[in-house]
């Protein structure tokens, strides 16, 4: 058995992201479909609000669905790559004794199960939250919209994503397995020859080991930088958006966005840093054995991700500002009850401060985790 069910369930990040995406899409799509049925009851006064709400539902589903699906795909591919890299020898042995790439790759379908679990939970929670959502979307002058069940939703939101993600897993695994058995058995992670930089460029400056380590760790795990940035992006965007939404419209939606943002941020950051430490456990152990201080190891591992965190945070701030401006000025432009939106400086600073505290805390926790790596145990694993 190459990949077990356990490996799939370990993809907590994918489970959470599919949960969030399906959760949001479930009630908005359901609301959209149910709202269409009362179209004939819409009057002159209520039309603007009614159309704005339909647009919001479409808009939110499209944005959160596509963004989160894209993130989940990147995460999946990253995980499979990491999985193959850390099981090179075992997989190499399978190939050596005659398993074909296709046969091994087919086992990777189980990585779709994480999506299935997340989507199913998200769908169920979406349904559970529906009465509250419908109530908060109630329009004065229109009857309460009844909650209906639409069979197409579980097909689109659970079955289809699971199938697509399983297919992507197998396909990517097949692609990633196409390399010489001998290099897999030797544990050669990178199978493309590296481009030789011109000699003069490398000769010029002598960098310290910690600098090189920092740089190469980042270079070897670029996708982690992406997840760190994404974590900070979703924290910044969704916390600020949640706070502004609270002032603009219903409190419930604001709080929901806020919670989703924090959960996404914590899970992606947790995932990124955990896999960083896991992939580098041996390197950290060796540095510790040689007498590098905990702080130096932490610096070499974690410091290079700080710029990405800040970039993610900045993009998130701009993103939520643009998105809310668009919503208020275009979608809700004819609705009198929606106040003007302007960028909130206090909210920005509160978000930034809480973000810095959380980020520093995460760094401290992971530095502590690194200090718990037993040098001898890591070395005994071989």
């Amino acid at each position, binding site marked *: 058995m190459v990949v077990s069910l356990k490996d799939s369930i370990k993809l907590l990040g994918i489970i959470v992201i599919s949960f969030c995406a399906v959760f949001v899409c479930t009630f908005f799509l359901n609301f959209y479909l149910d709202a269409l049925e009362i179209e004939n009851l819409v009057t002159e006064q209520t039309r603007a609000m009614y159309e704005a709400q339909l647009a919001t539902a479409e808009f939110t589903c499209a944005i959160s669905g596509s963004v989160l699906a894209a993130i989940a795909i990147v995460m999946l591919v990253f995980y499979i790559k990491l999985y193959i890299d850390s099981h090179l020898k075992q997989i190499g042995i399978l190939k050596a004794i005659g398993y074909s790439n296709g046969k091994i790759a087919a086992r990777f379908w189980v990585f779709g199960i994480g999506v299935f679990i997340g989507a199913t939970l998200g769908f169920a929670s979406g349904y559970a939250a529906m009465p509250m959502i419908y109530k908060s979307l109630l329009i004065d002058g229109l009857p309460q919209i009844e909650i209906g069940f639409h069979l197409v939703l579980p097909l689109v939101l659970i079955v289809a994503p699971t199938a697509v993600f399983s297919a992507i897993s197998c396909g990517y695994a097949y692609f990633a397995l196409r390399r010489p058995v001998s290099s897999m058995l030797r544990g050669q*992670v990178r199978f493309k020859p590296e481009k030789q930089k011109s000699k003069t460029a490398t000769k010029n400056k002598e960098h310290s080991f910690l600098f090189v*380590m920092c740089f190469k760790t980042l270079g070897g795990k670029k996708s982690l930088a992406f997840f760190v940035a994404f974590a900070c992006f979703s924290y910044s965007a969704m916390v600020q958006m949640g706070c502004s939404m609270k002032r603009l419209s219903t409190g419930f939606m604001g709080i929901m966005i806020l919670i989703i943002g924090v959960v996404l941020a914590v899970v992606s950051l947790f995932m990124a840093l955990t896999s960083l430490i896991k992939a580098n456990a041996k390197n950290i152990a060796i540095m510790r*054995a040689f007498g590098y201080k905990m702080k130096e190891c932490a610096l070499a591992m974690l410091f290079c991700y700080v710029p990405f965190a800040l970039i993610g945070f900045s993009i998130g701030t701009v993103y939520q500002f643009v998105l809310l401006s668009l919503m208020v000025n275009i979608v809700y432009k004819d609705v009198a009850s929606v106040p003007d939106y302007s960028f909130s400086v206090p909210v920005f600073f509160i978000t930034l401060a809480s973000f810095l505290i959380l980020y520093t805390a995460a760094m401290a926790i992971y530095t502590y985790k690194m200090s718990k790596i037993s040098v001898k145990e890591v*070395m005994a694993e*071989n």
Partner: protein
Amino acid sequence: MIKAHKIYKSFQSGAVQVLKGVSLEIADGDFAVILGASGSGKSTLMSVLSGLERPDSGTVVFGNQDITAMNDKQLTEFRRDKVGFIFQQYYLLSHLSVENNVKLGADLAGNKNFREIIEQVGLKGKFKSKPSELSGGEQQRVCIARALAKNPEILFLDEPTGALDEKTGREVLDYISRLKSERGFTMIMVTHNENIAQMANTVIRMNSGEITEVYKNNSPKTAFEIGW
């Protein structure tokens, strides 16, 4: 001088007794070899002596410092200033070049001449190679360069020639012992190979967690004189 006194060490909360009251003394500048069957506790003893692990009881005194009484920070500093390791399984950083792997050790001692050491272990054209592009023997030589670049006062070697053929094994041992006489560091080597013991000043024999024999060797042989 390293002085270990009644070291006990067990794993799985006492279920596996590995070291059962080991006491020994190794003088400064000595070349000590620890011999013993597989599973007799040689590697465990080495990691206790070098401050990688704490014993359950007993003391390890290094000069006048009791390393068993140190906290983690002091132990890290101790390893940083005094100790070099050469491991049986290499433990090179796979994503870094030979040069940068050696720099890991060199930087700790502020050693700028580490490239000479790489050349001396016979890896002149391999500065930019990755460990996976090297043979087993070449990887072991990178480990040696990494440990020596740190200018250790005491060098711990766990089966340094386990993966090498006779010719490379002899060359590596010869190189290490020449450096040892140049710089005068202390060397503690774990090995299965009885012949290598003939190169040492002090031979320590272990059997299931206890020291069964210690003897001095007054006329050590060179790496090319011993059998293999």
